[in-house]
C-alpha cells in the first residue's frame, strides 16, 4: 500500500486529485493528508512519512521545486510533480525522467504514473533540481509561519522534538523548523560545531575555550552554542586559529 500526501495551494485541485486517486482501484493507495502550501507540506512529510507526494510547482512563497530541495535525501519520499503549465519545469522533468502529471489530470496517465512509482525500486536522484543553496528557510513559530533568510539564522539545533532555529531578530528567537540539520548544513553556509548544533560563521562573536578540549560559541545576539571536541579542530582550521 502506498501512503500518499497531496500538496497543492488550490482547494479544488487537491479535491480533484484525491477524487481521482480514490476512483482508481488498480493501485492500492491510502491518502494520508493534503496540504495547501510547501511549509505545511514539509511538516507533514516529516510527521506522516508518506511513500509518495503529489507536489504542485506554483505555490506561494516556496515553490514545489524549492520544497524538494529542503527534503533530506535519505528519507525522501517518491515525488510526482503536478503542474498546469510550466514550460521550463516540464523540460527539466523530461530531461531527468522525473514523474509528472498535468492539470487537468487524465485518469489513465495518473494510473500509469502510480504503477511506475510502485514498481520502481531505485530512489530517484533529484540533484538536477536540488543542488542550489536555499534562499528561504521555512519555520513554524507560534501560530504563524516565519520565513528566514539563511543569513538571519544564528544557531540551528536538534533535540527530541525536532529542529529549532535561533534567529538574530528579537522577535524570531526560537522557531521549529521542518528541515533536518543535514539539509541545512549542506544547503546553507551554516557550520557544524556539535553533533546537534549548527552555527552561522558570520554570527560568531566569541569562541570561549573550556576544559577537556571543549568550547562554547557566543553569538552576536548573545546566544550560546556548545562546541564538541571533534568539531573544535575544524572550527579552528576554518578561522585559522592555532
Amino acid at each position: 500500500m502506498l501512503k500518499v500526501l497531496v500538496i497543492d495551494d488550490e482547494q479544488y485541485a487537491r479535491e480533484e486529485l484525491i477524487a481521482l486517486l480514490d476512483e482508481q482501484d488498480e493501485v492500492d493507495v491510502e491518502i494520508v493528508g493534503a496540504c495547501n502550501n510547501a511549509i505545511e507540506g514539509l511538516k507533514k512529510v516529516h510527521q506522516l512519512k508518506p511513500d509518495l507526494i503529489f507536489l504542485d510547482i506554483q505555490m506561494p512563497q516556496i515553490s514545489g521545486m524549492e520544497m524538494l530541495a529542503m527534503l533530506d535525501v535519505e528519507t525522501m519520499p517518491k515525488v510526482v510533480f503536478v503542474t498546469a503549465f510550466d514550460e521550463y519545469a516540464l523540460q527539466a522533468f523530461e530531461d531527468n525522467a522525473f514523474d509528472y502529471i498535468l492539470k487537468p489530470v487524465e485518469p489513465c496517465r495518473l494510473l500509469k504514473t502510480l504503477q511506475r512509482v510502485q514498481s520502481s525500486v531505485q530512489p530517484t536522484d533529484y540533484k538536477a533540481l536540488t543542488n542550489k543553496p536555499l534562499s528561504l528557510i521555512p519555520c513554524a513559530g507560534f501560530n504563524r509561519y516565519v520565513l528566514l533568510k539563511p543569513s538571519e539564522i544564528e544557531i540551528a539545533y536538534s533535540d527530541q522534538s525536532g529542529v529549532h532555529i535561533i534567529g538574530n531578530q528579537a522577535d524570531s528567537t526560537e522557531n521549529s523548523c521542518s528541515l533536518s540539520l543535514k539539509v541545512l548544513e549542506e544547503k546553507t553556509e551554516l557550520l557544524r560545531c556539535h553533533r546537534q548544533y549548527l552555527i552561522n560563521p558570520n554570527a560568531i562573536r566569541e569562541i570561549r575555550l573550556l576544559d577537556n578540549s571543549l568550547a562554547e560559541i557566543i553569538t552576536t545576539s548573545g546566544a550560546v552554542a556548545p562546541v564538541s571536541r571533534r568539531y573544535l579542530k575544524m572550527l579552528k582550521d576554518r578561522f585559522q586559529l592555532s
Partner: protein
Amino acid sequence: MELIFSLLQQLSVYLVIAYLLSKTPLFMPLTMLSGRFSQRLACYVVFSLFCILGTYFGLAIENAIANTRAIGAVMGGLLGGPFVGFSVGLTGGLHRYSMGGFTDVACAISTTAEGLLGGLVHLYYMRRGLVERIFNPFLAFAVLLVAEVMQMSIILLVAQPYEQAFDLVKTIALPMIIANSLGAALFMSIIQDRKTIYEKYSASFSSKALTIAERTVGVLSSGFNQQNTQKIAQIIYEETGVGAVSITDRDKILAFIGIGDDHHLPGTLISSQHTKQAIENGELIFADGYEVAYQCSIDNSCKLGAALIIPLLDSENQVLGTIKLYEPKQKLFSSLNRSLGEGLAKLLSNQILSSRYIEQQTLLTQAELRLLQAQVNPHFLFNALNTISAVIRRDPDKARQLIQHLSQFFRRNLKHNIESVTIQDELKHIHAYLEIELARFSDRLKVNINIDEQLLMQYVPTFTLQPLVENAIKHGTSTLLENGVIDVTGYLENGVVLLKVIDNAGTYCLNETELQTGLGLQIVDKRLKNSFGERYGLTMLCQSGISTRAEIRFPYNKENHRC
C-alpha cells in the same frame, strides 16, 4: 585754408571708394571682430590698400605730401589689433618711403607708429570687454587726432633740416589733422552702418524663422493632411507676409491661403507645370515672373505674379510634396522670404518625418497589444479547466456557469479591433475573469469592487483594468500564504477619473516580478497616454510586503455620463 579744402576734396573721393567697397563681401569680415586669421587678413589687405591710396591722393607740397594715409593705418589697427595695425602701418610707410622726399623716413616711422597706436586702442577695449565701442566714429576721430599730432612731432624730430620740417608742419598740420580725423570718423560710420544693416537683417530673419518654427511645432504630428497643412499655411502666411502660401503633396493641393484662394482650391489636383517639375526633379523652382515666366495655370486673371516652389524631401531625398510661396504681380519677391522659404521646407520635411515616426510608434503599440492578447495565459487556462473538472463533481450547475464565464473571457480577449470601451464593459470582462479566479482561490481570495456609477460610461482603452486585476492576483495575492484582498475602486476627483487596484501583497517592489509584469503594464500606461495625454496614465506604488497600488488617471468626459 586752401589746403584744407583740397585735402577734403581728395578725402571725398577716398570715402566714395570706401563706400563702394563696403557693398562687397570683402567688407563683411570688417564688421565683425572675430580675431580669426581670415578677419585679420581681410583687415590687413583692405586697410593697406587704403593706406597706399591715401598717399596717392595726397597733395605734393614743398617736396613732401599732405595726405590721408593715417586713416588706413589707424583703422587697420583699430579693427585688426596691434599686429595688423603695425603691418598696415609698415606697408604704408615703406610705400611712402619708396617715393622719397626729405620726410620719407619720418613718414615711414610715423605711419607705422600710427598703425600700432590704433592696435593698442583695440587691445585696450578688448581687455575691458568693450569691443563694440571700437565701432564708435567719435573714437576713430579722437584716435586719429592723437595720431596726427604724433606724426607731426615725429616729422619735427626726425626730418632734416629742421627749419624745412618746421615750415612744412606749420602748413600741413591743421589740414591733415582735420581731414584725417574727419575721414576716419566717416569711414568708421560707413562700417557701422553696414554692420547695423546686416544685424537687423539677420535678426528679423531669425526671429521670423523662430516664430514660425515655434508656432508649427506638433501641428503635423497627427499626419500630413489637409486639415493640418491648412494650419501651417496660415501660420506661414501670417508670419512672412507673402501674397499667398500653398502646400501640396505629390498629387494635389492640400492647403492654400492668401490671394487667389477663390480658385486655388485645396483638394484639387496640381496643374502648375512648375510644381510638377519641382516634384519630378526634387528641385527648387523660382518663377519670378520676369526671367522665368509665371502665369497662374488655373485662372488667367489671377493676381499672383511670382512663385517660389520648394520640394519637401524625406531622409532619402524622396519628394513628399511642395511648399509654395506667391507674391502678387505688383510686388517684388524679397530675398529674405526666398531663403526663409527654403528653411521652412526643411522644417516641414522634418515635421512630416517625425509625425510618421509617431504614427509608426502607435502602430507598434497596437501590434504589441495584439501580441499580448494573443498570448492567452496558458497557466490560467489549464488551472481554470482543472478547477472546473473538480467543480463538476460536486456542483454541475456551478461548473456550467464557470464555463460560461471562461468563454466570455476568451471571446472578449479575441476581439482585437475595439480601441476603447466603457468602464462598464471593462468591469464585465473583469467579472468573467474574477469568477474563475475566485473559484480557483476560493478559500483565500477576496475582491471588493466599488466604482462610482457616474464613471460607468466613461471610455478607456481596451484592456486597461483587467490586466491590473490579473497582475494583482498573479504576481500579488497568489504568492501570499495568508488571504489575499484586492480592492478595485473608482471615483471622480477634481474632474479627473481615478481608478485604483490595490492588493495586500506588496510584491511589485521586488525586481523579479517587475521584469515579468513590466511589459503589460507599460502598454497599459502607453495607451492611456496616447488617448489622454502625457499628464495621465498609470502609476504603480508599492509598499514592500504591505500593498501594491496601481492607479489610473484620466480626464472625466462630461458627454459620456450615464444615459
